[in-house]
């Protein structure tokens, strides 16, 4: 979007003030005859003089990754930067390509970014299949059909001030990606033309993933491209959505794949994770989602008395028993710690029990109470052990206090006895 605006400005600027820059170009060339690379670049010298958007490329090039690697205007746009007049500098006979049409931008960039031999000279780690992937994306497909709304390279990366994706100011830096996608995907006019909703960014921002990435800056959290892909951006689709989630939640996915739900979802044509957790608005899962209570999701499919219903009830029961044991033990251990007792062993057991709670919650996705319940029971044992340790520590605390006062009483009696003896001696 930004690139399109800049481009239009640049073109009108060139035509509107042709005489003035020609004069300035001549003056600049006479003035800057020192021979430095930038001084000899007539593109920069001329475009710098514009007051309109045509000067934007020269302003942004300072932090442009291409400029930093020694590439100049002519490497993309052709022409002769050594020429001192505009006609000669922008002569098609000298390879001047000008500004590419918006739809041609991906191809324009791919001249270099699709050439492994060329890219190896600058950044061998950078993939060179972006263009090929782009052609498979919804953006690429619709661009080929002449849709002017869809994103091209410059929509996300900018045109001239292109920063490395590792640069926190880059629009494609991890924490900036949702905002970059939202530039178009919250534009009601564009989205309406394509029958797409505009709520994804808002939903993502409310989700557990969005909160982690956007609020806490946790770069391990997924953003739009983590699930949809970047250059190959597309909807995951019913079949692939489980695979997308499994990129991070691999154990959960494995458990699901071995569970009776796998076949049932396939038979009903339902996506896997999305049915219970949603897509963009994925909230932090709660134990209320499990079981047969009013907020439980299991009862939406499993009728009372069915095997699934009983399994859900058993799994929820195991989780609740562990949570209750853990809460009691935590309170006891905290009380002992407040009394100044060393409860490191109990704290370790609590940590283990807490780990078992997390593991049990993950194993809910096996949808088998026989698989999940033993994990919760092991957690209960650890929590019980921690609670007993805490109680012992509190008992030990009181024993110490009582022991001290008994000792102090004995010492006081000794002192009194000594004092009486001294009095006896001195009288």
């Amino acid at each position: 979007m930004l690139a399109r605006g800049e481009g239009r400005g640049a073109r009108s600027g060139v035509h509107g003030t042709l005489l003035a820059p020609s004069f300035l170009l001549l003056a600049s060339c006479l003035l800057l005859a020192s021979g430095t690379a930038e001084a000899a670049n007539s593109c920069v010298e001329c475009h710098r003089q514009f007051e309109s958007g045509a000067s934007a490329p020269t302003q942004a090039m300072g932090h442009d990754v291409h400029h930093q690697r020694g590439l100049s205007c002519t490497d993309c746009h052709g022409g002769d930067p050594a020429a001192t007049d505009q006609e000669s500098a922008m002569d098609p006979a000298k390879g001047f390509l000008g500004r590419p049409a918006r739809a041609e931008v991906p191809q324009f960039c791919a001249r270099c970014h699709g050439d492994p031999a060329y890219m190896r000279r600058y950044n061998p780690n950078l993939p060179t299949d972006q263009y090929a992937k782009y052609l498979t994306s919804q953006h690429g497909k619709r661009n080929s059909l002449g849709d002017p709304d869809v994103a091209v390279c410059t929509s996300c990366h900018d045109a001239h001030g292109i920063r490395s994706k590792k640069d926190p100011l880059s629009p494609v830096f991890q924490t900036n990606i949702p905002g970059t996608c939202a530039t178009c995907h919250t534009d009601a006019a564009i989205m309406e033309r394509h029958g797409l909703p505009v709520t994804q960014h808002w939903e993502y921002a409310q989700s557990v993933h969005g909160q982690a990435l956007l609020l806490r800056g946790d770069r391990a959290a997924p953003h739009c491209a983590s699930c949809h892909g970047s250059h190959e951006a597309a909807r995951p689709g019913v079949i692939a959505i489980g695979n997308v989630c499994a990129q991070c939640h691999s154990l959960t996915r494995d458990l699901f794949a071995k569970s009776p739900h796998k076949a049932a979802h396939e038979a009903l044509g339902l996506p896997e994770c999305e049915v219970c957790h949603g897509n963009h608005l994925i909230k932090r899962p709660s134990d209320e989602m499990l079981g047969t209570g009013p907020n439980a999701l299991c009862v939406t499919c499993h009728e009372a008395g069915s095997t699934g219903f009983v399994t859900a009830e058993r799994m929820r029961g195991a989780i609740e028993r562990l949570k209750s044991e853990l809460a009691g033990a935590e309170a006891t251990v905290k009380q002992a710690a407040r009394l100044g007792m060393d409860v490191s062993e109990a704290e370790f057991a609590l940590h283990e029990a807490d780990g078992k709670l997390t593991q049990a919650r993950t194993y809910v996705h096996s949808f088998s109470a026989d698989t999940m319940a033993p994990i919760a029971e092991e957690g209960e044992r650890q929590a019980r052990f921690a609670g007993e340790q805490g109680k012992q520590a509190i008992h030990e605390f009181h024993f110490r206090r009582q022991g001290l006062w008994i000792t102090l009483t004995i010492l006081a009696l000794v002192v009194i006895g000594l004092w009486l003896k001294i009095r006896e001696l001195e009288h």
Partner: protein
Amino acid sequence: MKRLSEFLRARYELGGLADLATHKTVPLHRHSFWYYWGGMTLALIGIQFASGVLLLLYYRPSAGEAFESVRFIMTKVEFGWLVRSVHAWAAHFAIFSAMVHLASTFFLKAYRPPRELTWVSGVLLIFLLMGFGFTGYLLPWNTLAFFATKVGTELAGIPPVVGPILQTFMRGGSDVGDVTLTRFFWLHVAVLPLGLLGLLAGHLAMIQLQGMSRPLSVQDERSTPFFPNFFLRDLIAWSLILGAVLCISVYAPATLGEKADPFAPTPAGIQPEWYFLWMFQTLKLFPGHVLGIEGELVAVGFTGLAGLALLLVPWLDRPARRGQSHWLTMLLGFIAVGYVVGMTGYALWIGKPH
């Protein structure tokens, strides 16, 4: 008891020792209270030896095991928590008691002839007690101890020529590590105790041979037998100090903190033990350069000179040698005590979380 005494007298010539004990007297006057502080320091050193020997049963002096062994002592060994807490707190009490004893000896001018060497041995004993504190602090191998030792050994390396040699010797290398712990343990349980026992024996022998000094201002000639009258009073003081150590050990047991991680960043607000704080604060407040010399070097030199002056007090205070009290000595004494107390208080105040 009587039969044991007869048994020993039949075999050994104990008449001299028995006479010394029965004929020794202690001056009785308005400042007699200060005589108890030496005995209390001695009792606390005794507690340290007893508790230290018990800790040696389980303590393991290596970076891999030290922290765990102290945790084991505190959580698994019967009354291990009490022994460690008593050892930690009695160390503070011992140094405090020794400092009070030193100050009272100074202001009562007990160092005047013929007791110069008693004073010198007493000052050296305080230095040794501080050495015990410094080396013992590292032994639990926790974060605070590790970084405080790092800072402490860095300061030891400041004096030219001797400093770097001393630092490398203490650390056993270029940085604080496993070898440092072994060396500190060696110093704490072998070298320093041997030095302490030797000096203490000399210090006590000199007191027994020369008797206790009577202050210049006291004209009162009264005295009381050391045994049993003064000794029984000493026992009362020891019982009280033991009660105080036990109270604080139960109500504020020694903590262990986190295991030392040499790769972790230095925690904010690292401070040495309270008895080193006045030196630490002096070093912090000193300007970067003094007359073209590095400030740290000047501060360490100043502290060293103060220690040397303390050692030579009996010869520096010439009026006292003639049996006279001079106002300047008293003033300098008050300034020194005020400086140490003030700097310690200031360091504690700025070091506490606000």
